[in-house]
């Protein structure tokens, strides 16, 4: 049992924490009310409620910023990157954890380097050009996989310690092949860690601005963060539309967050504690 302070202490604590919460909640509220104002009212950047609700702001932003295309691109980029990270990291971690030899220790050195070394982005331009991947979603997918996967390999490796090697041995003796062993027996047992990796990788890829700015800065490959950036540059004085845009790109994440916050917090902090 945790020791609880006196009720009066609890009340003071809750009031103080609620006051601090306003620092987070007021900016959120600001996005919401201003996204529904007329251009003139929104330009005051205030917290007053709009005199008339301009729901049309949202559809206007959708059209002007070409959000359907950006949503599609962001979704394709995120799901392909995360899917490739999950499967390649789980497979690599499996061999890395099960073998106790030179290969395993080489891999763990590579993974450790990947956790600390900042990626060399400019020379990637050379590499992408070589494969004719400059300005393509696939290029950015592969960059995301390469730069973000070491943490996933590391965490999957930690998790695999809890899955007994005896399971593998029993399966092999029963005549199970190595791929069947991994995909049918080990991978399903990795469910919890896969969920964790899915959560933090997809949040980071979805929100990524840097790689898309470097390698997708033009044309049909716009992702949501990039569209938002260009939109603000163009329509910066139309604060109602800018706020509507912030709301549209942030709302899905916030909604998922408030529904599954327990998993998300656990997932995202697991990525940091072990790193």
């Amino acid at each position, binding site marked *: 049992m945790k*020791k*609880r*302070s006196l009720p009066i202490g*609890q009340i003071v*604590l809750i009031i103080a924490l609620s006051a*601090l*919460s306003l620092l*987070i*909640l*007021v*900016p959120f509220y*600001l996005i919401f009310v201003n996204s529904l104002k007329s251009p003139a009212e929104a330009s*005051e950047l*205030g*917290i007053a409620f709009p005199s008339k609700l301009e729901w049309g702001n949202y559809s206007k932003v959708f059209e002007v910023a070409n959000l359907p295309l950006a949503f599609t691109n962001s979704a394709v980029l995120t799901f392909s990157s995360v899917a*490739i990270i999950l*499967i390649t990291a789980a*497979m*690599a971690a*499996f*061999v890395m954890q*099960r*073998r106790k030899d030179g290969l395993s220790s080489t*891999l763990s050195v*590579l993974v450790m380097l*990947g956790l*600390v*070394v*900042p*990626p*060399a982005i*400019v*020379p*990637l331009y*050379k*590499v992408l050009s070589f494969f004719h991947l400059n300005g393509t979603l696939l290029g950015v997918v*592969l*960059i995301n*996989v*390469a*730069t973000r*996967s*070491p943490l996933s390999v590391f965490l999957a490796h930690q998790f695999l310690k809890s899955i007994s090697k005896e399971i*593998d041995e029993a399966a092999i003796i029963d005549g199970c092949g*190595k791929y069947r062993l*991994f995909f049918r027996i080990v991978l399903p047992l990795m469910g919890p860690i896969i969920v964790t990796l899915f959560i933090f990788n997809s949040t980071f890829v979805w*929100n990524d*601005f*840097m790689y898309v*700015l470097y390698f997708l800065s033009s044309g049909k490959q716009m992702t949501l*963060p990039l569209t938002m950036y260009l939109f603000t540059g163009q329509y910066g004085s139309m*604060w109602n539309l*800018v706020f509507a845009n*912030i709301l549209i790109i942030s709302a899905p*994440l916030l909604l998922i967050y408030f529904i599954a*916050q327990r998993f998300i*917090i656990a997932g*995202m902090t697991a990525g940091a*504690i072990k*790193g």
Partner: protein
Amino acid sequence: MHKLERKTYSISFVIPWLLIYGIFFVLPTLFSFYYAFTDWNLTSAKFSGFSNFVEMFQNPVFSTALTNTAIFTIMSIILKVVISLALAMALYHCIASNFFRTIFFSPYVLSYIAIGVLFTAVMHPEIGVLNKALRAIGLDFLALNWLIDKGQVIYSLVFIDVWKSAGFHLAIFIAALQTIPSDMMESASIDGAGPWKKFRYITFPMLASAFNANIIFALIVGLTKFDLVYVTTGGGPGYYSEVLKTLVYKQFAMGRYGLATAGELIIFVIVITLTVTLRKFLDKREVEV
């Protein structure tokens, strides 16, 4: 069994990851040791010795960027750790701790682009909510020109980053606090230890690894900060909020790839040196406390 093991855990499982990681992470890193010493631009890449580094170190914007990166990193580490620890202690004793943790963590899932644009509105000097609130409670002297004042802007960016990430560091501290056995605290109370003694001799040492994780994480994030600065101020006004990563990007965007690679190599050396040094220091302390 050994041979069977090698067959079962075959290298074919590793190859997909190794290929992608090797080509898109290891290879460019190795490349940077060469291209940093060339005058690589849109058309050619000729070896040019140390000229990129000489140009970099002589550029006054570089020293501004270096200073700003240092300020940003040190300030953000201190503020993130102190604020999130204080909040974690408060939440640990609060019956509504899950509720508040959910709120404090929520900005962390937002993109920097959304947060950057939001804060240009919040920090507007005349009509922004922040200054209006400060004036309303009589703290007029604190109502600063947040993102416009050249001496103030880098600290305002620190503030925004802390706003985004404090809840994240808080969650790490809370996870560590929950691992402290409660009978340890109870027996300390029975032995007559007050709140301060319990914090100093039980909580604080038990939090050592969470401290280290938070510090190292904030260090790496601080040294390589890009998105927030780029979208909020673009390094401005002038170059007063330029950091190393935004400087590198600007040179890349101008097609000065060799110079930009040299900039990245400098960041690489700084990150590795500081991370390894700090980690050694923190690990030693962890054993002592």
